[in-house]
């Protein structure tokens, strides 16, 4: 069974329907990229999966279990699903290491000394070994975003969600963050990305979904979707995006 299954997910803000009956399956270890114009519903869909937003209709299944049931305590679910945001959202009053250790300390009741070795390992793996004790404002955008990824990974999630995590970065810093994503994919992490990096999606994704007005217009393997888009909306979007 797929790791994540979305069935007819519907999300409204007032009269504005942001997700309009979205169906999606993400297999274990797969990287799925959501593409589409701003406002198509990509970010909202990710926030729904992480239960930061509640949905009006539909189901979100994690390992076959409906996590979108109204009234369900979202905290245990969020521990299993990590999320990284466009604007990093590091905690500015804590060092990188403290940012990373906060949730494991509070949620898994682990001590700093217990955590330090495994955290150090993670920092090393993502090329941040010498940045552990820096504050966020002492780090570049790319470094901050990598710390944010390490922070999410420290909770040992089963799924990672990435919400346009390279959009706020200077172009020369995008590469280092994408490298991290490749590294993660190779380690077998299940990932869902909302992204504008078409080249990266084509190269690394297992599946690409094109969203428009809260609906999945077209989905498929990257080669099929990028090289031979079927739907006219997809064709129009790609024509603009790949120009």
């Amino acid at each position, binding site marked *: 069974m797929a790791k994540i299954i979305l069935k007819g997910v519907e999300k409204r803000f007032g009269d504005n329907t942001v997700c309009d009956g979205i169906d999606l399956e993400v297999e274990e270890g797969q990287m799925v990229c959501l593409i589409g114009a701003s406002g198509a519903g990509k970010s909202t869909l990710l926030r729904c999966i992480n239960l930061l937003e509640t949905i009006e209709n539909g189901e979100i299944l994690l390992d076959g279990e409906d996590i979108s049931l109204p009234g369900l305590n979202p905290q245990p679910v969020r521990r299993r699903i990590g999320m990284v945001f466009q604007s990093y959202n590091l905690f500015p009053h804590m060092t990188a290491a403290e940012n990373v250790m906060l949730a494991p300390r509070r*949620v898994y009741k682990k001590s700093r000394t217990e955590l330090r070795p495994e955290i150090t390992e993670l920092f090393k793996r993502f090329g941040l070994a010498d940045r552990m004790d820096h504050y966020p404002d002492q780090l570049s955008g790319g470094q901050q975003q990598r710390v944010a990824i390490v922070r999410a990974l420290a909770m040992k999630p089963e799924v990672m969600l990435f919400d346009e995590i390279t959009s706020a970065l200077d172009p020369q810093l995008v590469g280092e963050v994408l490298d991290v994503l490749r590294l993660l994919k190779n380690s077998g992490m299940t990932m869902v990305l909302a992204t504008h990096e078409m080249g990266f999606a084509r190269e690394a994704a297992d599946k690409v979904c094109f969203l428009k007005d809260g609906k999945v217009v077209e989905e498929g393997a990257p080669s099929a979707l990028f090289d031979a888009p079927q739907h006219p909306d997809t064709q129009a979007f790609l024509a603009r995006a790949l120009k």
Partner: protein
Amino acid sequence: MSKTNAAGKTRRQIYEDRLRRRSMLIAGGSTLAVLLSVLVLVPLAPGWDRVKASFFNWEVFAKTFPKLLEAFKLDVAIFLWSAPAIIILGLLVALARDTRNPALFPLRILGAAYTDIFRGVPVVLTVYLIGFGIPGLGLPRPWNSPYIWGSLALILTYSAYVAEIFRSGIDSVHKSQRAAAQSLGLSDGDSMRFVILPQAIRRVIPAQMNMFIALQKDVALLSFIGPVEIFRQAGVYKSLLANFTPYVGAAVIFLAVTIPATRYADYLMAKQNRERS
């Protein structure tokens, strides 16, 4: 190869130096003019001798100042035991007003009513009501002490203001910080305690310092219900000597504390504005 003169200054630096010298001259000159006109013109006023005798009487000042300083210790003591309580209560009220749990809705309403009422009532009235009212219910000594209930009046009033400032600080932390904390699986309480509050508190420190400067002055209101702090002591001297100089002495003591504190708060505020921009 840069163009510098003998003193090693660039053309721009020389120009700016000249500008600076000029503006300092103008500032110094106008300050001097104002000071001179105050110092010369005021004593020329027909009533100056009488005003001087009753407000700026050196003999009275020297005689009363040591006792006023002694009485000011009580103001400081009241401040020192009230301030921590105000911080704690203010924070609790701010958190109560921020609570999203529907079961705690009454707490939220109570928090709102509390801040509305205590910010809306003159402090003196609260001091009277609580300072005389609650002991009047029949509490035994020492539990009916005006020090206890007067301080409580100050604590309740100032906590209402302090709570609102804390709340504005909490509101000023971007909601993406809360989202980030929640996405990590932190509970709402932990998100508030470890992520939101530390940032919120840091932001409102200058504003809170101004509140506590005001508190230091309002401690004098406790004199209405008996404690002989500096304001009352000055009032006693005023009556006995039929002279207002003791109040001037008290003002000097207050200023010696509040001016440095105000300057420091302004400095913190300016520093924070610089950091944020």
